Each structure stands twice: as C-alpha cells, then as structure tokens.
C-alpha cells in the first residue's frame, strides 16, 4: 500500500514537472515579454535594461529554475492585460468557479447515480427509456446551447432568474460565497444546471453501463441462486462493485467541471477562473495562461492521487495484493 502511494506520488511529481516545463516554455518563448510590457516610445536602452532586470538574458536553465521557484513560493507574476498580480486575480476568482463546480457536481452525482442504477435495473420501462432519451440529448447538446436555452426560458421569457453575474455574495475572509444569500443561490442555479446537465448525463451513463456489466457476473448469478432478495442483490452486492470504477470517473469529472466551467462562465458572465482563462487566450496574456495551466494540472494530479488511494481503500484486492 505504501509502495503504491509512493509510486503514484513519484508519477505525479513527474507530471507536474512536465507541465511546469510546458508552462515555462509557453511563458518564455511565446511572444516577447518585453514587447508586451512596454509602450511604443520606450528607448532601446530601456528595453535592454528591462530585459536584464527580468532575467531574460540568463541561461535558460536558470530561468526555468527561477520560474519553478516562483511558482512554489506563490509568486505568479503579473498579467500582461490588467497589470495586476496574477496571484490576486486567481484568489479573487477562485471561489466563484469552485462553488459553481461544487453545485454542478452535486447535481450530477445526486441525480446521476440513482438514475443510472434505476435504468440498469429496470430495463425497458417507460420511465427508464425516457431517462435514457433525456440523457442522450444531454450528452449531445453543447453546454453553451443549454445555457442559452435556460437563459432564454427562465431569464428572458419567464424572468424568474438572473442571467448574468453572481448576484449578492457574502465575503468570509478573502472568500466571496454565493451560498449564504438567496440572490446568490438564484444566480447560481442556472449556471449550475447548465454545467451540471452534461456531467449528470455522463455519470448516469457510466453508472448504468458498469451496473449492467456487474449484473451479468457469476457472483450475482450465484447470489440469486442462493435466494438473496432483489434489494440486497442490487443495493448490496451489485452497487458496491459498480461504484469502484465509478469513483475514478467521478474524480475525473471534477476536473471536467473545471474545464467546462469556461464555457458556462462565458455564457453567464460568471466571474470565475474560466472566464479569466478565456480572456487570457483572447488577449494572448501569456503569464495568466501558463499559471492557469499549472494550477489545473495540479488540481487533476491531486484528484487522481486521491482517487487511487480511495481505490485501495475500497477494493481489498488492490490493498492486500493477490493471495
């Protein structure tokens, strides 16, 4: 078990190293940092001095080492576009994305898992087929179309819910939360739904597929032959075995949520990290791009690690090794 965790940690470190290298390359070699920072009139000598002070004349290895050092100590540099420290920008926008992600993940899991189980067990019923059709559409409709549709129906036609921004938020320390105000919840609802629908359908389809596989196994047949009743069979035996592979995907989904939040934030003008990244792409704001890259990779790596550990905890075969 320790060996397993150690190995995964090493792998994670490797991945992070690679990503940081990528981010550094991006940062240093795409576009000219100096040109971005100066106006038309800056003299050549001033440009040269700037270049030296930024360390751009140092050997590449040194620059890379500095880059990594800065990252690790939280020094993220400055945005080309807004001239603000990137660290601050990220901190101020992180709560928005995080809460959005949490809300949509909740929707996805709380609805998706039961729906998946239901459609795996009840094959061919009217309700099951209806759910399947809905999820098929959910997987196929692009997030932004869902968003637009929801805005139109609930925001414009019915006027029930706000269509952009976070509404009222409460600040706790540096964290601005939407969860503590009604207006916050109202503003959160549509974006969370938009983001959540896609995740929901993915979850549901996965749970359904895994459960169907499990239900065909010998040990389920044997349990049925022993007379174990349906409820214990499905919710006890089958479910436990289904959830094992589902955990991986759920973990990855959290990452997917972060990714797709870009689109949702764009549609709803939700002031989160995704919108930040999008703007940085549009304006070729390299420092922000590279920091975002590293952060997201870190998030994924951590999630993967947690998932692997969870796997070991739940599946005795992984934990104890083979006999």
């Amino acid at each position: 078990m320790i060996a397993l965790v150690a190995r995964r940690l090493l792998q994670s470190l490797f991945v992070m190293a690679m990503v940081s290298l990528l981010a550094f390359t991006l940062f240093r070699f795409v576009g000219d940092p100096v040109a971005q920072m100066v106006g038309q009139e800056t003299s050549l000598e001033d440009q040269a001095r700037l270049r030296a002070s930024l360390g751009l004349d140092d050997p590449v290895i040194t620059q890379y080492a500095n880059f990594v050092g800065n990252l690790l100590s939280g020094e993220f540099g400055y945005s080309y576009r807004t001239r603000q420290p990137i660290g601050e920008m990220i901190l101020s926008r992180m709560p928005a994305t995080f809460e959005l992600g949490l809300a949509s993940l909740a929707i996805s899991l709380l609805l998706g898992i039961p729906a998946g189980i239901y459609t795996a067990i009840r094959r061919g019923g009217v309700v099951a087929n209806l759910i399947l059709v809905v999820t098929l559409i959910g997987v196929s409709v692009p997030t932004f179309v869902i968003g637009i549709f929801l805005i139109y129906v609930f925001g414009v036609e019915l006027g029930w819910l706000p269509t952009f921004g976070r509404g009222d938020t409460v600040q706790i320390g540096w964290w601005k939360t939407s969860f503590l105000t009604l207006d916050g919840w109202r503003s959160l609802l549509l974006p969370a739904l938009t983001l959540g629908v896609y995740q929901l359908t993915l979850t549901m389809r996965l749970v359904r597929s895994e459960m169907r596989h499990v239900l065909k196994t010998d040990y389920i047949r044997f349990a049925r032959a022993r007379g174990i009743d349906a409820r214990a069979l499905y919710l006890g035996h089958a479910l436990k075995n289904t959830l094992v592979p589902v955990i991986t995907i759920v973990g990855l989904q959290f990452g997917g949520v972060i990714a797709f939040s870009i689109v949702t934030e764009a549609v709803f003008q939700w002031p989160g990290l995704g919108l930040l990244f999008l703007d940085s792409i549009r304006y070729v704001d390299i420092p922000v791009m590279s920091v975002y890259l590293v952060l997201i990779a870190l998030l994924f790596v951590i999630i993967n690690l947690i998932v692997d550990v969870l796997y070991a905890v739940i599946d005795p075969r992984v934990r104890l090794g083979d006999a």
Partner: protein
Amino acid sequence: MVPDASNETLPETLLEIRDLTVTFASRFGKQTAIENIDMDVRRGEIVGLVGESGAGKSTIGAAINGLLPGTGRITGGTVTLSGERLDILSEASLHRLRGDRISMIFQDPQTSLNPLMRIGEQLIETIRQHRDCREEEARSLAIALLEDTGIADAATRMSAWPHQFSGGMRQRVVIALALCTEPELITADEPTTALDVSIQKQILALIRRLADERQVGIILITHDIGVIAEISDRVVVLRHGQVKERGITARVLGQPEDSYTRSLMAAVPRMDRKLERFRGIVEAVDTDAAATRRGPSARASSGAAGKPLWRVSGASATAASDWLLGESNERSAVHDPILSLRHVDVIFDASPGYLFGLGRRPGVRALDDVSFDVAAGSVLGLVGESGSGKSTLAKTITGLVTPTRGTLHFDGQVLPSGRARSRSHPSRRRIQMIFQDPFSSLNERHSVESILIEPLREYDQAGTRVERRRLAASVLELVGLPQRALLRYPHQFSGGQRQRIAVARALLARPELLVADEPTSALDVSVQAQILNLLKDLQSTFGLSMLFISHNLAVVRQMADRIVVLKQGQRVEYGASEAFFESPVSAYGRELLRETPSLALLDAPPRR
C-alpha cells in the same frame, strides 16, 4: 433397472422431470436446447448429467432453478420437486424457493464469489435471508459449515476476502454457501473442472460425503466421465439436447447399450493401458456444432448432403503426403536426440528494486534445473499440474521465453534462446507449435486460406499463389477437412475443426519437431479422440518428433513413448512412458496416478 438385492426401500424421489423441453429464440429462429427429458433424483443420491458441449446439460440445471438465461423458456413438460410443480411457478415464488430448497454451484470458484465482500459476510447474509435468526447465531452456523467443508481455522477465515483463498478452498466456500440454506437439492455445474486433479478428488469426496450425511439430492453436471464414474450413483447421458441413455452408473459406463454412449466410452483415454488408436469412435460426431444449431439447410452446405465438393485443381491428401514425405526423406539424417535441454532455469519478475532495495523481488522460479531429450521420431510426454512449468517450457523451446540459465540443442546444434534467436533462424520453421485454445490460436479476421499460407510465405516454401493454394488445400484434406474450408473464417468452425486447421498450419511449415501444448484439453472427449488419432497418424507417417504436453495422464499414456513429469518447475520423473505408468519411481508420481479419477472404479462392486 436391476432390482436391489438387499431389498432396502428406495429413498423417496425428490425431483421428477418429465418430458421437459426448453427453447431459445435467436436470430436463427427458435432453437430447441433440450427435448423430452425424463429424469429422477432421489434423496441422498448423486445423479450425473454427462454430455459434450452443446448437449444441454447446463440448460437442464438452469431450467430447474428458473434461471434460464436470455430468451430461454420451458415450452413443454414438467418439473416436480417433492410433489410441487416448479415449471408453473411465478418468478416471485421461484425466488423464494431458491436457496431454500434448491441451490446451485457454478464452475469457476474465482468468479462465483463477490470480490468485495468478506467470506463471512456472504455466508451470514445468505443464512439470515432464509431463516429468522440473530447475527451471532448465523455466524456460528457459518463457522460450523466452513469446518464441515474442510476449511481449517474457520473462525479466523470468516473475515478473509475471496481472493485470499486458493481455487480449491474457494470451491469449498462456494459449497458451504450453497449448503447454508439447507436445500433439498443442489445442482453442481462442472464444480471441479477448473481445479487441479488432486484438489478435484478432495472436492468430489466432499460432495459425496455431504450427499450421504445430509441426504441432499445432487445433480452433477459435467463433461468429464471420470468424475461421473467417481461419485455418481446414476447417470444420464445427453447428446444434442436428448437423453441417449440412463441408469446406474456402473452399468451405463461399463456396458453401454446406446451407440452414442458406446462411442463416447470408446473415446475416453484409458489410464490402464496404451492403445494404438482410439477405436470405435463415431467419426461424424465432430460436426460443425454451429451448423447443427442453424438447421438443415446450413448442415447441407457443409458438404454432408452429397453436393459436388469444391476442389482446388491438383490438390489432394496424397499430394500433401508426397510433399511432406519428400521432406522427411532428408530428415532421416537428423540428429538423435533431436532436442536436448540441459539445466534450464527460468525465473520471472525478479527485480533488484528501484530505490535502495525497495520493491526488490526474488522472482518466481518457473523452471528449476530441467534437463531432458526428445528422441528423433518419438513422442515425449510432458506431464504436470498447473504451476508445474509446462507452458513455460513450451515457450522456452519455441523462443517466446528466454531462460535464465541452461542450454538447448536442436538437431545437434546449439539453439539460441529467446531474444537471441533471430526471426530467420532455421529452427523457426523446423520447430512448430500447436496451442491449447482453438478459439484463440487462429486469427478470427483471417480466412483459413490466409492462415494456412502464412508458413508457406514466411519460409518461402512455394513460389506462386497458385502453388500455395494447392498445398494448403491438400494439407486441409490430409487433416480431414473439406478443401472448401479455405474460403471460410475460423468462427464458422467447431473447436475440433479449428484444431485440425491449427495442425494443418503447423504441417505446412514441414516441421521436424512438433510442440503440442495441451492440444486437446479444450475439446470434447470424442473430438479429442479424433484429434489424438490424427496426431498419432501424422507422427508415425511422417516420422515427426513430438513434445506432447498435458495435465491429463490418461491422454499422455495414449500418446507418449517416453515421459517427463514436472512438479513446480522441477523434473520429478523421466523415462519410458509405460514403465512410469506401471510403477512410478517418485512419491509424487504415485500420488498423481492415484488421484486421477479413473474408470477402473467401474470394476468395483456397485454402491448399493
């Protein structure tokens, strides 16, 4: 049936099956799996259901339980358990019955247990499902059951996970699970097929004891006649979904009346003496099983209806013979022994570790100082149970595995091993292999023709496409398949036919040494006999040397001139085959002979 001399009252009839018919709906239309089956099982009695694949044995077992898969339905007849009709019960009533009165055991202990639940939990859950009791009571019952099925240290093992048990132990747990609901009838579907011979014997003894002590009726479904002979009281012989013969085991197996049963018994390899060939087996038994299911029109197109046969010009079995013999005339100059192994070691997965000895592994020793010779033109049998290293040995000889130590010599010259053996080394052609699983040894996406001409291409044995086709068709005929098979794909053939194709492929390289790795283990008994006959004929006609690997002693006895016995990678016996079977030198050899269920039991006095 022979009246009982002792005049005991026969135990009451537990299960009565009359005229049972089961059909499945498939894309070929309705198919009858079993037809007009009559069968009885009495309390404390073991009734064997024996037949080859597709006979319908498992279908009967599933029908009794109401667990027919997919589209299967009982379309005729009755199933009565202690006077109560089972076939007309609703699913809900059937479900209550399951476990309570009827239980079932499946073949593979590996997949029969939920890997995420401890043994104890699975037992306790089943017990409490069927009787109202507290957990402690259920727990002590479970422990008692585990002890009864021979699991030592039962109390501690209750909290173990399934994967922590060996195959035999797992099957004991499965049996305990089936018993814990105190059923009247148990259906055991191939309960020992996945186990080693010695474990098999123990499990069979366990089943026998349980039947006697608890007066449970047991239906034992298997294709292995030795198992039937070992513990069953009466037997029902099935073929293509119909009962061919039934009666007391000793009588049916000893003096069979039905022609199919007779040919079946003739096909079983005998342990007591070596026959030159298997005689009296029905040649037509090895039909295209799929075609049989598909119906009369498809059967005709396999050539059985007398339509004009498709042929390649100039292709015939004689042509193949001539071509192969032409090679073997040069072969008489081959070195004797043709293959020599000296002090071969194979160690897997040894690793020095990646950081200060972390993760270092000593490795698994698959072969340990193995040495032997294969004499030219003879058959060396290689026997061993699972884990003995037989497959590793085959792979070492054919270059798939590199030995850690030791030398190999082929035809008097050093045989480079593993990666050192270049792809164009002559031994590549001269040593050919026949694999165990006919369903994976042929590439499903290639036509039979392209499978067969591959050796011709690789070894430049025939110049033109026309010539290759002619040779392929000829060898096909030589192994007993129609030439038309060239145009077909593997999935259209049965296991036995595929194995013939595999033999043809090997022959087309014109080899001198054939390594046959369990070539018939996956085949039905009668098909096995035909393939073994084929191998015998080819070997003697063309003077091939053969390394015949099997775990089945009886089969090896029929095939081998000399024998090597492996135990956990070490050579335990080596010498003339008959000498070994008459009187083995080692304790392990004696144990192996003792453990193999043999038909000699049929000569013992009848049980009741």
